[in-house]
Structures are given as C-alpha cells and as structure tokens.
C-alpha cells in the first residue's frame, strides 16, 4: 500500500478560515473544488446512496407524477399519455358523490374519537410504569405491553373476533348465563369504538416508549426541590411532571393531527364487510373500492390527491401552530 503524504495537514483549511474570520471579521469564501475532483472524491458515497435514491424515484416521485391522471379520463389498456384530458370533471364527479362525503365524515369522526379515547392512554400507562420502583416488574410490564405492536392487523382483528365475536368466548359465557348475546364485531353503531379499542390494545403499550424517555429525562432535583417547598404528590405531578412531558405531548398531537385523514387502513378494510360501508367507509377504503375495484381510476386518483394535499396542508399548519405556541414542532424553524 502506498502511503500518500498529504501536501497539507488535514483540517488546516478550516482552521485557517476560522482564524482569518477572527482576524478580519469578514467571512472568507469556501475553498472551491473543481467538479471533476469532487466527483472523483465522492463517487463511492454516491454509489452507496444510489439504491435508496432509485427506490424513492421509482416508488415515490414517479408515481407522484402519475397523479396527473386525476385530470384525465384514464382507461386501463390505453397508455397514460394518450388518455384524453378531462379538466376538473373528475373532481366535480367526486364532489357530487354522496359516498365520498360519507367517507370524509367517517374519517374525521374516527380521528376525533381516537384522539379522545386513544391519545391519553399511552400517557397514563407511561406514568404508571414510571412510578414502578421494582426494576424487574417494570421490565416485565414493558415487554408484555410492547408485544402487540408487532402483530399484524389480521391477527389483532382475529383475536378480537375470537374474544368478542358471535361465537367468541365472551358470548359463550353470556349464553351459559342465559343473558342476551351481542355481536360487537358486526354492529355498525359501535364500530368506531371497536376500532379505538383495537388500536388501544395494539399500540397503547408501544406508545409509552417516548413518554417514558421524557419522564426519565426530568431532573430528580426538581422533584426534591418541589417537595421541600411543600408540594404534595399532586403538586409535584402538576408542576414538575406535566411541564416535563408537555413538549412531547404537543409534538405527538401535531403528528396525529397532520395525519388526520389516515385512519388504520388495513384495520378497517379487514372489517368493512362485517359492518358494511355505511359505518366503515373511510377515504382510503373509498379510493380502493371506488377506484380499484369498481374501476373509476381517475376519480379514485382525484380522491387520493385531495387526501394528500389536505394532509400536506394539515401537517404544515399544525407545525406552524406548534412554533407559535413556542414548541419545537416536527422540524426546526429555518
């Protein structure tokens, strides 16, 4: 192996620039490296990042361009570029479709219900786990509660069916006791509550991770000082614990609001046939059944495009709101 002697010790460029800035107070322009030399220097790194860039191009950016079909009258077996333009007619068709608006309403209702029922559960669980003093008990509880997150929706729905379905174990007990049986899984009126229960079962434990980290990061001396100042358990919770985890709560709330139009697609599509589209049609299932199954490709894409655009606006708005509230938000202000 030949040892190349550097013409200059590494790092002096930076030092020299810094020193110059200190001396004169003016910024010295960065050393410019010719393109050919940069390419020769960086091509191993470029090769490394290439697979990821190709995958993102093929399966995110190019399909994104495919959204122009929303403005076309697309039929399968005709090449996309030869499809006739349709202006905004797909959107007017969409906006006059009652099923679309029903899907929008269902989606928003499910988001709202989950915000109320699901969102506080991981926080409460995290507070409970954090208050455990025996390390082994804490480890056991955490291991068990994280586990459901790794099961597929097919299995979670299966579990609920075995426990709560018409032939499930709960109804068997009810039947033995001669009490009226209920089939919660096929009941449209409580379907949205059922969805929340399933999300809680699957992900509430997993959701505690981030809150537990925030709780562990609170300085113990704050609790000590509060106790000395006469704060009881409630006072310490209100004035130390809650302010300590507030940034995380706000952050997750923003993320959830930005994602308001996505509500457990696999979970819902698995159960749609049991309760019927009236209660279970959400935006994503509308795109699938109306667009893919019924073959209304262009209106389906139009619905998907609207969902994407509204989602983009929501996440930007939620982030802006967080900055205004003085929180850090999803990405830093630049």
């Amino acid at each position, binding site marked *: 192996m030949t040892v190349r002697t550097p013409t200059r010790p*590494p790092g002096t460029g930076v030092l020299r620039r810094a020193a110059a800035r200190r001396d004169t107070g003016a910024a010295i322009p960065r050393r410019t490296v010719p393109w050919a030399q*940069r390419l020769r220097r*960086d091509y*191993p790194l*470029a090769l*490394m*990042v290439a*697979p*990821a*860039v190709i*995958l*993102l191009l*093929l*399966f*995110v950016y190019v*399909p994104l361009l*495919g*959204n122009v079909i929303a403005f076309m009258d697309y039929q399968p077996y005709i090449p996309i570029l030869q499809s006739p333009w349709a202006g905004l007619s797909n959107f007017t068709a969409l906006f006059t479709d009652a099923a679309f608006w029903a899907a929008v309403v269902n989606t928003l209702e499910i988001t709202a219900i989950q915000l109320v029922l699901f969102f506080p559960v991981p926080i409460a669980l995290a507070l409970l786990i954090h*208050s*455990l*003093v*025996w390390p082994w008990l804490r480890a056991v*509880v955490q*291991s*068990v*509660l994280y*586990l459901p997150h*790794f*099961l*597929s929706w*097919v299995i979670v*729905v*299966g*579990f609920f*069916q*075995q*426990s709560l*379905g*018409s*032939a*499930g*174990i709960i109804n068997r007990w009810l039947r033995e006791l001669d009490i009226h*049986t209920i*089939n919660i*899984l096929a009941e449209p009126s409580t379907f949205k509550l059922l969805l929340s229960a399933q999300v809680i079962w699957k992900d509430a*434990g997993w959701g505690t*991770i981030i809150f537990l*980290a925030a709780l562990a990061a609170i300085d113990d001396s704050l609790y000590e000082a509060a*106790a000395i100042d006469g704060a009881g358990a409630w006072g310490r919770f209100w004035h130390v614990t809650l302010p300590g985890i507030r940034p995380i709560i706000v952050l997750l709330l923003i993320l959830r609001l930005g994602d308001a139009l996505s509500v457990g697609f*696999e979970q819902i*599509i698995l159960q749609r046939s049991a309760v019927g589209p009236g209660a279970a049609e959400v935006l994503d299932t509308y795109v699938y059944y109306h*667009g*893919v199954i019924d073959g209304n490709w262009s209106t*389906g*894409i139009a619905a*998907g495009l609207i969902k*994407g655009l509204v989602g*983009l606006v929501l*996440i*930007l708005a939620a982030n802006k709101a967080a900055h205004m509230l003085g929180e850090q938000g999803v990405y830093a202000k630049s």
Partner: protein
Amino acid sequence: MSTVVRPVWAGKPQPVVLLLKALAILVALTVVLFPFLMVISTSLSSAADVTAAGGYVLWPRSVTFEAYEQILSGGLVTRAILVTAAVTAVGTTISVASTVLAAWALSRPSFFQRPVLMFVLLTFLFSPGMIPLYLMVKQLGLLDSLWSLILPSAFSVFNMIVVRGFMMGIPQELVDSAKIDGAGELRILLRIILPLSRAVIAVVALFYAVGYWNSFFNAMLYIDDTSKWTLQLVLRTYVLQGSSLVEASTDSVTPPAQSIQMAVVMIAIIPILCAYPLVQRHLTKGVLTGAVKG
C-alpha cells in the same frame, strides 16, 4: 423488598394507591396476554376437546400437535409460509443494505449531501397515493410477482434517519484514523461503523422484517395467483372470513376446524415471538435515536 430505592421526598405511598396500581397493571397484562393463551391452548387441543369445550379452550386437557401436522404437511398454508419467509428474508436483506448504505453516505460530507438529503426528507410530506403506486407497479410488470411485495416498501426514510442519527454520533476521530490508514469509505463502513451500530441495525432489521411478515394489503392489491399468497392473506381468508365474522346467526355451530385455524394464527405469531426477545432491550434506544436526532 430490600433493594427498592424510593426517593425520600416521595414519602410512603398510600395503601389504596398501591392497590389501585397493582390492579391496573394486572388488568393491562391480562388484557394483552389473554388472547395469546386462548389461541395457544386451542391450537394444541384435539378437535373433540375443542367441540366439547364449546369452541375455545383456555387450558388444553391434553396436548396434541395434530393441527400443526395437518397444516405443515403441504397444501396452501405450507406454501404460504414458504412464500412469506422468502419475501421476508430477501426483503429484509435488501432493505437493511440500502438503508445502512444510504445512512452512511448521507452522514458523510460530500457535494451531494444536502440536495440528496432534501430529496429523501421531502418524501415525508407526501405519499404518491394508492392508485398511482399500483399503476407504477403494473407498468414495471411486477403485478402478481413477489417483487411487488418487496420493492415498493423496501426503503423507509424513517429507518434511514434512525440509523443515520446513530452514525452521526460516532466519534469522527475513528473515521479519520481509518482514513489515514488508507481505508476507503466502504471499508470504513464495514469494519468500523457496522460493528459499532449493531444494536440500532438490529432494531431497524426487526422493523423491516416484521413489516414484510405482517404486510397484508400489498399482497391483496398486487397478488392474484393463490400459489403466491402470503400467510396474512391465508389468515384473512380462512380465519377471518371463514368464521363467525360473516355469520348472521348468533348461536351457530362452531366451525370444526377451530384448532387448525388457531394453529395458522400461531404459525404467523411464532417467528415474531422468537425475534422479539433478541432485540427487545435495544428497542427504546432505536426508537429514540430517530425521534431525538431526526
């Protein structure tokens, strides 16, 4: 217990509070573990026992592996297991490789670092939508091919950010000294960075593997041919649709193949139960590196 360290300022907890806490923990653990117990017990019981017990067994009277033998002796389920295992193995390899390479390349200064990072991060803000992605997969000729289950979801930007965040924390001196010794970028990655990042890569690999193993809608959308069905599709067809979910009457006869259905569920769970303890202690670290530094 004598090893308990309770801060002095916290004072002695009230018995009522302790009781409530114990109760809450007990309820939480039972709610999570109860379905597992039911599925395991039912899958290990003979058909006669299951019928006698009225459809579900909470504790098997006698243990038999009949149901497992039946589904593993060839046929649709065996095929689905092999297909899913192959997709998971190949997919996880491709995903972890592309993620680690991209994470390392984007954690090093280079002329393309900023624009490419921007290109990657922008995908957080929008998704292409279901139908455009479907049409793309169709254009590439991947419909009804197992590659359609791998390539569209092979690279996760979130996982890349997690790995990159960890790599940025590795002391620069290690990289510099290897450079002086004449190592190229790839060798530095393989010899120095990878051994140090083993924990975070294990977590990301678990995320990817679980994703492939559990993914259901991709297969429903892209795969028609039943010989290429994945385990989750089989589960949906034979466990969810084949039983009480679609039955109208409430006091129907329990399906005779209950223990077989539960055995299929168990087969889908067992690999996850096996992989889980291996990475479980790294989970928090993996999740938080991404959350804090991303």
